[in-house]
């Protein structure tokens, strides 16, 4: 068997220094290279993360004391709507697509995604959609001339969104921006599935793909049947608002509950679309820093696929209080509880990977460990909510808000932080500062728990969500204050992270091509990889091609 060395790339970075800035901008604007597109998605998402985080801080200040007058109810209602819509569609989806775009071709030994131009188109239409959503703040007047930013909640329940209850254009900005972002999502998902199925390097059977690739395959497949129902519902809503259709017009016999069904048929699998890539990152990082192969590869694949399928059948656990009747409620209780089984399997497999290993507490691993604890808690509060009668009390309260932020921030954002620290050296050629990383980690953990642990309690004490103020005397006051303080601490931690990102680009230690002693194909390229990724198309014989090279006496071939 012959080998070919990883050729040191023709150093394109040197060539790009000293080029006129306009050329560089033009290159980025017209690129179809998956790595550049991936980075654009990520930077775009980080900008919106800061904006939506700022919206959260404003809400927290308003809620810090009862009967506060920091913002008006109209502004507050816009804040929670924009915060939710931005975080899901313009932070979560883009950042995860960004990482997928960057990593998948590298991990499967390909040179680019299957449809590079579609890739660029999907990015730019999503980017435009985000700008459109925020244009609503300045475009035209809304109800009571409150500005047109959407104020109908990120799930835009009917008939609040009907023209009669939401005159002006706030709902339309929401509908159109999310619709366009959905088009972009379907495009990127199509690209991901096709790339994974049609562009793997020689020898990389489905059973030898890194788990990150499997999880993105499931996630992208899920997008097709997840985003489309929302797209359909938004077309219906727009027909209602502009052509006088009656899909959700309760005065004409239409059904408000139908919107809820369509929205949650999107909304529930959507959260799995968001969390599966988080699992993907953890699946790659935990083994490397435990110095052991992932425990139960096949079970992990089966569990991920299972989660994908089951997630399509649980949506009405968001509707336990709608009055579906005992049969309906019982079915969705069952389906929701069942999904905890494959999810639990994943947690146990991570635990078993760590068990017997040699755990290195580098910053990526620290974030992954926090992820595991926090995802465990989030899953358990999810089980609480899945018991429908318990949800009759806790649904639409701050307990639910705490639960889903535990998943979105405690699990997904933590996994993303881990992914940043882990792959930053590959993308930029430099290491991030471990010291700043540890500050970021500990401050964020403290802030996160102050906010989201304590946030469960007002829910248990009867505080509903989406209220711009509250009565004194319900014992919610101090808790809301603590929640707000945690938010400030998280903000500081995030600023440290952003500073680390920027500073390390210029002053970070040079990384080399494989700083973590890892085992998947992306670590066989230079850091950063050249535009063509691999000088020669690789061939693989196992799940961990670089492990085989480093440990020929104990290679993975034969362990599948």
């Amino acid at each position, binding site marked *: 068997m012959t080998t070919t060395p990883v050729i040191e790339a023709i150093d394109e970075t040197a060539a790009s220094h000293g080029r006129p800035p306009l050329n560089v901008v033009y290159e980025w604007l017209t690129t179809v290279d998956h790595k550049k597109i991936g980075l654009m998605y990520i930077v775009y998402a980080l900008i919106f993360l800061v904006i939506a985080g700022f919206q959260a801080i404003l809400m927290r200040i308003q809620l810090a004391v009862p009967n506060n007058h920091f913002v008006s109810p109209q502004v507050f209602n816009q804040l929670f709507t924009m915060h939710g819509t931005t975080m899901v569609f313009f932070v979560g989806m883009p950042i995860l697509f960004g990482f997928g775009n960057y990593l998948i071709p590298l991990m499967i030994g390909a040179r680019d995604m299957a449809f590079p131009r579609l890739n660029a188109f999907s990015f730019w239409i999503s980017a435009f959609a985000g700008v459109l959503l925020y244009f609503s703040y300045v475009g035209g007047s809304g109800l009571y001339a409150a500005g047109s930013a959407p104020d109908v909640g990120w799930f835009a329940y009917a008939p609040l969104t009907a023209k009669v209850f939401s005159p002006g254009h706030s709902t339309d900005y929401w509908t159109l921006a999310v619709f366009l972002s959905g088009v972009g999502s379907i495009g990127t998902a199509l690209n991901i599935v096709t790339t994974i199925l049609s562009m793997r390097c020689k020898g990389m059977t489905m059973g030898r793909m890194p788990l990150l690739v499997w999880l993105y395959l499931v996630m992208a497949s899920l997008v097709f049947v997840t985003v489309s129902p929302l797209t359909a519902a938004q077309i219906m809503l727009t027909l209602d608002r502009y052509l006088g259709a009656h899909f959700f017009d309760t005065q004409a016999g239409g059904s408000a509950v139908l919107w809820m069904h369509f929205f949650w048929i999107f909304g529930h699998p959507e959260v799995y679309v968001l969390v599966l890539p988080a699992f993907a990152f953890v699946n790659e990082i935990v083994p490397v820093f435990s110095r052991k192969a992932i425990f139960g590869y096949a079970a992990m694949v089966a569990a991920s696929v299972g989660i994908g399928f089951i997630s399509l059948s649980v949506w009405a656990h968001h509707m336990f209080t709608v009055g579906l009747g005992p049969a309906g409620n019982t079915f969705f209780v069952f389906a929701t509880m069942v999904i905890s*089984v494959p999810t639990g399997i994943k947690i146990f497999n991570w635990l078993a990977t760590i068990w017997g290993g040699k755990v290195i507490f580098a910053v990526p691993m620290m974030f992954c460990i926090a992820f595991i604890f926090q995802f465990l808690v989030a899953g358990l509060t999810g089980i609480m909510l899945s018991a*429908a009668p318990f949800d009759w009390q806790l649904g639409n309260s701050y307990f639910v808000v705490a639960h889903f932020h535990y998943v979105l921030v405690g699990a997904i954002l933590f996994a993303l932080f881990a992914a940043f620290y882990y792959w930053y050296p590959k993308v930029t050629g430099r290491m991030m500062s471990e010291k700043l990383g540890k500050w970021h980690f500990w401050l964020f953990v403290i802030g996160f728990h102050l906010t989201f642990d304590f946030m469960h309690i007002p829910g248990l004490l*009867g505080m509903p969500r989406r209220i711009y103020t509250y009565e004194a005397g319900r014992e919610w006051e101090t808790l809301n204050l603590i929640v707000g303080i945690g938010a400030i601490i998280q903000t500081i931690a995030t600023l440290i992270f952003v500073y680390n990102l920027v500073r390390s680009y210029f002053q970070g230690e040079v990384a080399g091509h494989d700083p973590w002693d890892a085992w998947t194909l992306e670590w066989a390229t230079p850091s950063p990889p050249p535009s063509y990724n691999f000088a020669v198309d690789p061939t693989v014989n196992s799940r961990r091609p670089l492990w085989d090279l480093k440990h020929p006496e104990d290679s993975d071939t034969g362990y599948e």
Partner: protein
Amino acid sequence: MSCFDKYSATCSSNGEGGFALYGATFYAGPAFAQSPTSIFDPAATPAHSIFDLSMLVLSVTLAIFLIVAGLLVYALIRFRHRSTDSDREPPQIYGSNQIELSWTVIPILIVVMLFLTTTRVILGTEAIPKPASALDVIVIGHQFWWEYRYPRLGVVTANELHVPISNPAAPTPTYLTMSSADVSHSFWVPRLAGKMDVIPNRVNVMWIDPKQAGLFLGQCAQYCGTQHAKMLLRVYAQSPEDFAAWVNQQKQPARQDFSGNPAAAEGQTVFMHSACINCHTIAGTVATGRFGPDLTHLGSRDTIASGPVQNTPENLRKWIDHPDSMKPGSLMPSMHLNDHDLDVITAYLTQLH
């Protein structure tokens, strides 16, 4: 507290300390005891059954957390990389069928157990027959107030729901038949029951049977527009005698004789000649509007504006003058009345006991 069915064994032993949410116990205790809207302070059967189920679920999830988190912590400590370690990688273990099977089967069993107990509570709340002695109330949600109609008693009121307490020996639950006149709302009084959504073009039914007299607080729990936050709920559970007295009072048409009170008399005249009558009903007069709350017995209520404002003459006057100053975005417009009209109308309405 009274418990519901077989799993009640867990409820009496756990009490309030058992459900501490991982890390916030030290604060939780006192707050739970003092909050008027705590789900852990049930005062009616639906809330009780949910409480009991919640104790079971919390115990199970707490146990799972302690075991899994404990194992994780142990693994991280025991298997950490020590500087004295050799450079050799640890043995690569790819899986184990027995272990993986066991941690599939055990969760399935836990799920089955939780599912069955949950189903029992669902059926016990939603699928039981309605007793003949039940009181019927029609609840209509509006932006941003609650309308209550007692069809068999001939009572119509708003924002403050009065119900009789229910004696477990001879239960008299109140059945709430709910729909909305505009957008979706949700009726949530945590100490009495779980919430139920109030949806236009749809009828939902729930029941409550308060076991003790008192005032139970809650608020709308489905975002319904600008003033969702101040669409509060007040449920007055009364002894059968007190309730009957209240019904008798509410059934009467509005007071019309103000011989000793010229301001109120004039206020009545002004009111009946203003646009107020287009939105509000005062039984026995020409005011028959349905868009806003029924004002026939406004003077008998503790609060106005659906809860956030105490019902005093000063507040009432301010509300009529400029509702947006107290509840910005409420759908009652300012009527731009002059000071004199405001004074007399306020005098009139405060007399409507």
